[in-house]
């Protein structure tokens, strides 16, 4: 934690330092020999300093504070911890498999890196690979301590299988999580990514990619009330007809907190469907960033895509950036998007107050109601309860004191 208090490097120095640190970990990754060679090359070519001079990287990080690069990180330790609540899933644990020996679908579909982060994390992280044949759940509850913890997870779902993923990464330092999913034909996967305010307050950067085959479906639920810097990049490729993805995110963004979602959904085949529904409630000094892109290939006719981000600014000096983007190269598609940013509506507050509900209670009710559109879609009620509890408790504190 001392390192967090004393940033010593410029951003470019820090980028060079972190690049070297990760490149030194190259032997860690558990990959088959043919991939190993390719990834070693990508790792050695990767340079985080390009974030500051290559236009596409600058665009991707335009609104995101990168102070975490200013610390002279060392390699940290990963410690398995208990999940913050009892997991309601009844599915058996997914099977962990050795990536070197098995020909895993998720390793075959692991995308070619499009950024130095992806290159470094794909080839240098501590890697674990999982497989679900019929049904299974994967619970990742790991705490990063003392420095940088890079992690690579892959999960392959066999055709027509059913799975659940529960992600609980936390850190007081810097955790870099690279997670790739391969959802086979007709398989269904639900992914839950909840984080709570009482967890560690470090930097958590997640790159989640998914490759969906015919009639496969993926649902993700990202619920955040954490007080860390949290950037999540989601890249979904709907490769074959009938594939569907539903991405949900609800965030309570506390003061001095960054909640950053960078999403790309790629429709690569006809009759594919995607839905992005994100909401963030932002306190003074907090920063909410949403960059969502829908990319429809020329052949992906009859695509149905929707994207929405709504930000509620709780106080003055709260910040929300929303950048919805559509790139459509097919002509018979339905793609819609919407973005709103604003303060709480005074007439709603007045209405509640005229029924006797005190001002602060009325504000809390409306805060929960704002996020409820997303929260109530989560299929497990324990996640609703936890989220509402934290929001209500956090909103009782003034923004300046709530950290």
């Amino acid at each position, binding site marked *: 934690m001392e390192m967090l208090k004393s940033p010593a490097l410029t951003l470019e120095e820090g980028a060079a330092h972190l690049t070297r640190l990760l490149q030194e970990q190259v032997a860690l990754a558990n990959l088959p020999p043919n991939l190993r060679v390719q990834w070693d090359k990508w790792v050695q070519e990767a340079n985080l300093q390009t974030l500051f001079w290559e236009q596409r990287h600058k665009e991707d990080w335009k609104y995101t504070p990168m102070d975490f690069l200013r610390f002279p990180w060392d390699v940290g330790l990963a410690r398995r911890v208990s999940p913050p609540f009892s997991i309601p899933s009844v599915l058996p644990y997914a099977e962990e498999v050795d990536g070197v020996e098995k020909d895993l679908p998720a390793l075959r579909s692991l995308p070619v890196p499009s950024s130095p982060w992806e290159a470094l994390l794909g080839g240098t992280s501590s890697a674990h690979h999982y497989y679900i044949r019929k049904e299974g759940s994967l619970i990742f509850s790991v705490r990063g301590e003392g420095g940088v913890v890079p992690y690579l997870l892959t999960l392959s779902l066999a055709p027509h299988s059913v799975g659940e993923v529960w992600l609980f990464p936390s850190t007081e330092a810097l955790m870099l999580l690279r997670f790739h999913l391969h959802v086979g034909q007709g398989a269904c996967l639900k992914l839950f990514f909840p984080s709570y305010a009482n967890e560690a307050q470090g930097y958590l950067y997640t790159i989640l990619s998914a490759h969906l085959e015919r009639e496969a479906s993926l649902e993700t639920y990202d619920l955040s009330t954490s007080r860390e810097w949290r950037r999540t990049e989601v890249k979904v490729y709907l490769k074959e007809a009938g594939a569907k993805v539903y991405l949900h995110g609800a965030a309570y963004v506390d003061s001095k907190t960054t909640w950053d979602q960078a999403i790309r959904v790629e429709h690569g085949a006809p009759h594919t469907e995607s839905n992005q529904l994100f909401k963030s409630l932002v306190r003074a000094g907090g920063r909410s960033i949403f960059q969502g892109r829908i990319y429809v290939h020329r052949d992906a006719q009859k695509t149905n895509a929707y994207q929405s981000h709504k930000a509620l600014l709780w106080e003055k000096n709260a910040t929300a950036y929303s950048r919805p983007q559509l790139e459509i190269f097919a002509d018979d598609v339905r793609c819609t998007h919407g973005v709103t940013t604003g303060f709480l509506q005074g007439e709603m507050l007045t209405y509640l*107050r*005229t*029924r*006797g509900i005190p001002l602060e209670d009325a504000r809390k009710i409306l805060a929960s109601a704002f*996020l*409820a559109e997303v929260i109530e879609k989560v299929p497990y009620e324990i996640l609703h309860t936890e989220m509402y509890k934290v929001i209500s408790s956090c909103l009782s504190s003034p923004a300046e004191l709530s950290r």
Partner: protein
Amino acid sequence: MLTIQNLHVSVEGCPILQGLNLEVKAGEVHALMGPNGAGKSTLAAVLAGKEGYEITEGEVLFEGRDISELSPEERSHAGIFLAFQYPVEIPGVSMIQFLRAALNAHRAAKQQEPLDTAELMALLREKAALLKLDPAFLSRSVNEGFSGGERKRAEIFQMAVLEPKLCILDETDSGLDIDALKIVSDAVNALRSPTRAFLLITHYYRLLQYIRPDVVHILVEGRIMRSGGPELAVELEEKGYEALLSTA
């Protein structure tokens, strides 16, 4: 119960109410009629404590207490209820959640324990039946996707649940079909009591055929120009405002 003396109210510097006097006693039903822009809804808003209305002169006493400095919630706890002309939608808050919070806030103000779920649901179902509302309505978000008529019925439903002393109905009859108007009127009549008063703001005589008022007032340019019994509404219906006031 309600005493308004020489009330002057401005909105953004523009005078709306200009010396309004009104006395409403417990058990009475008063109808307030007037042309568009006369200040009827402004009076309702001022009584409920909505922001943006500045009292520049005069006073409003509720049960002998000056309410001008009270917040909307304090007025509600004191027993004032406004059925809105345009009730706002509150997505994500069910009618049950909303009324649980409202009822328990009222109970807390009286140092009473909160209602448990069984008591709450029994009360809500009883009042919903009064308004002939489907119980499924209780699970819907407040006013979200409601038709105009449903919104007005929902307002009277809330009134029935909270059992206020002074009920102000701001054009509750507008947007109601005949059947809905009868349901709403029956509910209001059922709530009439010697300890409760009503102020009905309306443009139309037809509401007063269902809810018979004790006193009818004609509000013009921020002042009450005439008051009388129910026959005044009949006369107004026959002559219109201009002719009625020119013969006053």
